[in-house]
């Protein structure tokens, strides 16, 4: 492979020597080369970022729907085309990072003294100082050190060359950020491959005990890790106004061999056991009681799960619709309809009759079931670690901005001639103010 390959636009991305494996035909190597260059180009990176943004926009406007007409965003974002864009971006980032490794190593190693001539010629400023070159060189080093620069110097006779930099660790920032992005994409792809973990659902009546095998969709869980769950109660807590729901609780006991552990699961407070998480997701009630309507004699009813949705009295055209149950006060929230019109909302206390027109309703018991979403996702800690890495990387790359200053000090008729100049990709103004202060101090 030719060593003099053109660098990327800025020269920042040096070609990686790792790919220059011996062997293979000339054309074979060229293809690898072309592919590698394509994958490591920043242009591809920016294009992919924008394509990803554009594709994401489309997915929020043109929303696929499920069989109930609800938006099903995942249908779009789990589409292979979208995943190919993500995978290409991950690959691009990986290749870029490998390519940049040499640059990183040399940056961490420090600026090269040999580059001094070039830089000061291009961006330097010359000052005449009335002092010995050696003394001046010391002064320059001192000023730089006080500003937090690392110093690398060489001396040939009475000519001193000083390379210095600060904020060099900043170069690790983007590196960590890119690595974190790669890690997260991998975790997501692994999750959607279905090879680890699962997304499931569990529904259980109060008072019953269930095995983990009753969880709908359970997968990739070792049989030895199975346990039983007893649903002790499902509770709805209302706010003092009696209308707004404050929280839903599922009190459960995990029975794992001889060990019993109690959990209270509520929204924003999942239970985690053996790596499986249970989230409060939904619920339902079964109401039993009696009613006497225009037909006369008492009749029993079962509403909710396992029965009708509401109680209807033919003679009066009244419908009684239970909408919830407050556990603390033992009140059934009841809506009363006349035809299509809602005519009253009452709280029916258990075993106390509610009368409307000629209809009397008594709720005698309420039994609840809870619906928990369950999942196991070994990718979550990886995503977590990736997120921390991302933040650390981003913060580092913005806080530590590398500045490099080179100076050459040589003897001059009246003392010393100092040539000083520098570069900074990200903080030109910071660099300029450092240079200004240093030259001002030298002139004194």
């Amino acid at each position, binding site marked *: 492979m030719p060593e003099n390959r053109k660098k*990327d*636009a800025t020269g920042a991305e040096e070609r990686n020597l790792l790919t220059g494996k011996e062997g293979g035909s000339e054309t074979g190597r060229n293809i690898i080369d072309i592919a590698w260059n394509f994958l490591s180009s920043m242009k591809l990176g920016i294009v992919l970022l924008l394509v990803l*943004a554009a594709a994401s926009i489309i997915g929020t406007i043109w929303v696929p729907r499920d069989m109930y007409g609800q938006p099903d965003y995942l249908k779009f974002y789990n589409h292979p085309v979208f995943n190919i864009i993500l995978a290409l971006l991950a690959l691009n980032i990986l290749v870029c990072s490998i390519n940049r490794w040499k640059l990183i190593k040399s940056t961490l190693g420090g600026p090269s003294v040999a580059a001094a001539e070039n830089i000061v010629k291009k961006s330097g400023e010359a000052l005449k100082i009335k002092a010995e070159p050696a003394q001046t060189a010391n002064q320059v080093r001192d000023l730089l050190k006080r500003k937090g620069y690392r110093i690398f110097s060489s001396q040939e006779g009475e000519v001193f060359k000083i390379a210095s930099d600060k904020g060099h660790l900043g170069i690790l920032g983007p590196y960590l950020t890119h690595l974190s992005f790669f890690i997260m994409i991998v975790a997501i792809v692994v999750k959607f491959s279905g090879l680890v973990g699962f997304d499931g659902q569990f529904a259980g009546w109060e008072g019953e005990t269930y095995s983990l095998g009753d969880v709908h969709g359970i997968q990739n869980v070792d049989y030895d890790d199975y346990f039983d769950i007893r649903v002790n109660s499902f509770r709805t807590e209302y706010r003092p106004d009696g209308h707004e*729901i404050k929280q839903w609780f599922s009190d459960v006991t995990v029975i794992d061999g001889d060990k019993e552990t109690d959990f209270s699961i509520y*929204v924003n407070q999942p239970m985690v056991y053996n790596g499986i*998480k249970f989230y409060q997701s939904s619920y339902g009630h079964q109401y039993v009681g009696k009613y006497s309507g225009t037909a006369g004699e008492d009749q029993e009813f079962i509403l909710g799960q396992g029965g009708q949705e509401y109680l209807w009295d033919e003679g009066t055209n009244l419908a009684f619709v239970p909408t919830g149950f407050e556990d603390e006060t033992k009140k059934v929230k009841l809506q009363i309809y006349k035809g299509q019109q809602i005519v009253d909302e009452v709280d029916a206390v258990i075993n106390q009759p509610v009368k409307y027109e000629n209809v009397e309703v008594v709720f005698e018991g309420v039994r609840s079931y809870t619906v928990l979403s369950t999942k196991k996702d070994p990718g979550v800690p990886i995503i977590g670690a990736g997120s921390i890495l991302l933040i650390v990387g981003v913060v580092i790359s913005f806080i530590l901005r590398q500045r490099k200053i080179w100076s050459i000090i040589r003897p001059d008729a009246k003392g010393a001639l100092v040539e000083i100049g520098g570069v900074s990709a990200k903080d030109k103004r910071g660099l300029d103010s450092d240079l200004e202060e240093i030259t001002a101090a030298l002139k004194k």
Partner: protein
Amino acid sequence: MDLVTLEQQSFTATFVAYGAASLIYVIYLGYKNESFARLGTIATIIGLITNTAFLVLRWKISGHAPFVNGYEFLLSFTWGIAVIYLYAEWRYRMRIIGAFVMPIAWFLLAWIAMKMPEQARYAGNLMPALQSNWLTIHVATAMVSYGAFALSCGTSIMYIVKKVLEDNNSKSSFNKRLPSLDVLDDMSYKAIAIGFPLLSAVIITGAIWAEFAWGRYWSWDPKETWSLITWLVYAAYLHARFTYGWRGNKAAWMSVLGFAFVLFTFFGVNYFLSGLHAYGGL
């Protein structure tokens, strides 16, 4: 006086103060008088105080951090803009930026005042899914982040204006009083350098909250997706800047575009896209 009245009055006071500040700064563009411009700073500070008072009162009234409905988001957003702006004014000692940043805060409030129905403003109870400290951190970071992006947008607009004037060899005093192109470019980038890490934190804390509430750190809900899109646009800005040397004009336009995405994430998603859902469901 009860807390609710006090809260409403602090909204009005904030609205008036930001409006006055915007007006003073804009007049200052053509009328160079430092002690007059100082009134703009004073008005901004008063607005920030009453804005803070609004948020504190709202917190007291509702019993939770005031980060739950659109009204509260907006007042948090304007708070972020005012804080970041005052920091920039103090840091760069330039009041002229105010003419390009404070009107953003004022327009946002004017928009609420005109558009938002009365009942959308009430302090409400938290539904169970919103009862999370992560949500509080999430929105608190968002308001500073968005404030920084607003500052970047304002200074980018200044850049674009100044560039046109320079290209036309304008000798107007207005042109002379705008900071140099270099300074504007630098300010705009530095604001993004504050906003971008915070936006990353916003997305991550949002994901943590979603993981606790629903067991899904990412579900491609439109709001989530749009915050990612915004983040990608700023990531593209940073890459274009550092690897292609896209500074100056191109960078300025990208920063303005980025802020348009911020605004869309903030309002557009609720007003256009979720509207779509509501109709789609019928």
